């Protein structure tokens, strides 16, 4: 084992961690708006990438145009999921609603397999594939894109939630849905918006990660679950927790794979998930939920 690997592992960890953080943020938004765990989050990631692949490789649409189209389409899918099955469910029991998102996730995966086949696909990265050397670490341009976009998204989300009226209304809804409704905020509309934003965050994560790892119809499952682990790690529902949880998970996974065994790389995230549930279920940033009887 050579310690010269460490800088590479750190870069890879932060890169993957940023992706997990984006996905974890999606979970977080929907959790805060509705109290649901959205199992289709991973499928948003997969769809975002598959749509770009389809637009770029199939229809020859240049990548800078394909990106926003894909993000908007997945946002629409997210909104449709909320407006359709979840809104229309006769039973408002959380268990039923969560299971509906499981159903949605399987349907999206199945539809994607029907449309685009089973093979893994890829599209070229924006800045080419020649790495920059930075302090002994080879940094791919795509890694820089990923980190840059993650920081940008965080800044935008911060601005949205703290400086705009809609964002503040959304925080109000997640704090007290009934109270928000009483002062004239349409909780329904904001829930739909949360699903849309969540969908576009997922799509962005998928688009950013695909040039490095490629994507197939079932690639969303693993990414979605790792994003969820990151969200739990940080404290479910907490925005800074989601970001930090993502980065920590990415680093641990990359160091674990590089220094211990790469065969069990995927198992690390879930062992971490189980360990967190065992030791500190509230996560790094979560607080214990107080319930009124």
């Amino acid at each position, binding site marked *: 084992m050579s310690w010269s690997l460490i800088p590479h592992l750190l870069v890879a960890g932060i890169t993957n961690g940023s992706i997990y953080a984006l996905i974890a943020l999606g979970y977080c938004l929907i959790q805060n708006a509705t109290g649901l*765990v959205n199992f289709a989050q991973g499928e948003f990631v997969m769809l975002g990438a598959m749509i770009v692949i389809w637009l770029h490789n199939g229809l020859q649409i240049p990548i800078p145009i394909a990106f926003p189209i894909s993000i908007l389409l997945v946002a629409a899918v997210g909104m449709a999921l909320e407006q359709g*099955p979840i809104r229309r469910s006769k039973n408002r029991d959380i268990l039923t609603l969560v299971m509906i998102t499981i159903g949605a996730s399987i349907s999206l995966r199945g539809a994607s397999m029907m449309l685009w086949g089973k093979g893994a696909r890829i599209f070229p990265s924006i800045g080419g594939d020649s790495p920059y050397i930075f302090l002994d670490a080879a940094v791919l341009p795509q890694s820089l894109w990923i980190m840059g976009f993650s920081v940008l998204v965080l800044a935008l989300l911060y601005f949205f939630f703290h400086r705009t009226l809609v964002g503040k209304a959304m925080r109000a809804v997640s704090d007290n849905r009934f109270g928000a409704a009483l002062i004239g905020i349409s909780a329904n509309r904001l829930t739909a918006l949360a699903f849309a934003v969540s969908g576009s965050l997922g799509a962005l994560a998928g688009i950013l990660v695909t040039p490095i790892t490629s994507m197939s119809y079932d690639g969303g499952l693993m990414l979605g679950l790792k994003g969820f682990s990151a969200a739990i790690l940080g404290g479910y529902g907490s925005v800074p927790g989601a970001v930090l949880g993502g980065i920590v998970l990415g680093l641990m996974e990359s160091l674990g794979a590089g220094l211990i065994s790469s065969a*069990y790389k*995927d198992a690390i995230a879930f062992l971490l998930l189980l360990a967190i549930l065992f030791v500190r279920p509230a996560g790094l940033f979560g607080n214990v939920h107080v319930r009124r009887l």
Partner: protein
Amino acid sequence: MTEIERKEDRNTTRIAFVPSNWKALIAFTAAVMVLPAFFRNDYFYFFFNILALNAIVVLGLNLLIGSTGQVSLGHAAFYGLGAYISAISSTTYHLPLFASLVIALALVALTSFLLALPTLRLEGHYLVMATLGFNIIICIVLGQMESITGGPSGFPGIPKLRLGPWIIATDRQFYYFIWSSFIVLFTLTLNLTGSRVGRALAAIHEKELTAKTLAIPTYGYKVATFVLSAVYAGFAGFCYAHYVTFISPKTFDIFYSVQIVTMVAVGGMGSLWGGLAGTALLTSIPELLHQLEDLQVLLYGLILMAVLVGCPNGLFPAIATFVTSTASKLAGWIARRPCESSSANSAKGEGRGFQPPAPESDAPLPRRELRSTNGPLLKLDGISLSFGGLQALSDVAIQVQPGEIVALIGPNGAGKTTVLNLISGLIEPGRGTIELDGLRLSGLPPHRVAAAGIGRTFQSVQVFGSLSVLDNLLLGYHKNGRCGFISACLRTPAERCEEEGLKIQALELLESFGLAKPALHSVRRLSLVEQKILEIARALALSPRVLLLDEPAGGLNPREGEFLMRHIEALRNRGMGVVLVEHDMNMVMRLADRIYVLQQGRLIASGTPSEIRKNPLVIAAYLGSRKGRLTAESAEKIKG
């Protein structure tokens, strides 16, 4: 009474293991035995064998969902563990089949126990994700440990099943073996759901916190159910491995877990017969759509979503309801009778009015043993509690003597309900101690507190809507039963006997509260006052030493309130301590021996009703005062 007794007679069988609806089970068994007459080739046997294996896993998952209200997406992993562990121990280590089975089930039970321990402690949907993660880990491990599991290419050469001298080699032999196993497991599960434990599990599913205050160890029950449910899957995995003799990790991936969950959802979550129907339907779909293999995943997803959105209680229960309602409509139309005159409506609370009996002093309540010390019965000392930055209670001290009714009053948000939640163990105090007759309650989990002798009711009435009136009351008697999971599954004579004993007690108690008539009706049909009385009766069934009543008169009209008051007075005469939180001052002044007044988490006064009525601080707290801020300070002075 007679109607109920007759019904009881019909349901009670003295033979162990025979479930109450044995007729349906016998019909089903006969159908399973006759079915092969219609099989044209071995493929049919194979199909029905796979169906039975799925049905066993579904049965276990159904039990889990029915009792915890949580879903596992990791049952494929337990199925796989059962298969692989038995395959390895019987093939690699040449252990006898029975030993392999025992090892496999023991290891499955152990892993599921370790997985359940942290996750079932939490609320929310951690279990789904934890089991999903677990399934993925197991699949990775099975694929990676090639030297032990054979890796992705699979594990060949597993010996066939044998029962004593007989080898179960053919599809046909396995058919009879696996369906017999299924029927045995199905019977065990039916027995369990119909028992005292099963009733507690249904209560946990519906309102876990309320179940805790009825002395039901909810966490332990949930963990036990999860382990049992995983063991079912492990057993199915064992049978599968020794049936097909070749296993590979792909069989046990997430998609199988999802299929199983879909079968449960389509059949109706928590309904055992429905689960069987759902399994039959969804196992046959891939067989019918052989050419469209790629469509399967999409189809599963769409079916799952459509059923959950359209008929969340499951497709088959929905069909059954539709058929019966149509049939009764038709019958009603033929008899030229309007539907409204059915018996359902005449039983409604508001329809017939509630006719309360006078409280009797010799109502069938078990009496508590004598006191061990001479101090106060219930003693709260120096209780402080804060939620985040909010100081909810500071330095509260309350004492209740036996046979004393203590009222806790104060403006909204003063912390009255919080005090009750602290006593019943739903919240832990930040500082201070709670003692019941010398026994320290603070720090005990709610079900232990309830068992120690604290009964309570809730501000908004908490009854179990899916259960009958009698079953609701029987939950209060839960701690009087001794029979656990095993005797419940086996439906032993001792278990039957115990259950009958509890029923007799419960019916007597219902009688004394005037609720015997609707005993077998759904609790949803009761009026509010009846539900409140049932809730009090249920708390009394615990034979508590202290009863906590949270706004019993809330939402009742004066006549109903009067009736309730007479019952509470009767409790005092039995030597029970009562803590009463109430806004109705007439009731408080008439009933209470002593009153504590809470304001913003502090006790500002205590004393007899006449003292409290004159206390200037109390008047200020209720009516407001020009020196509102000063009063709180002067309260400190008076107390200090």
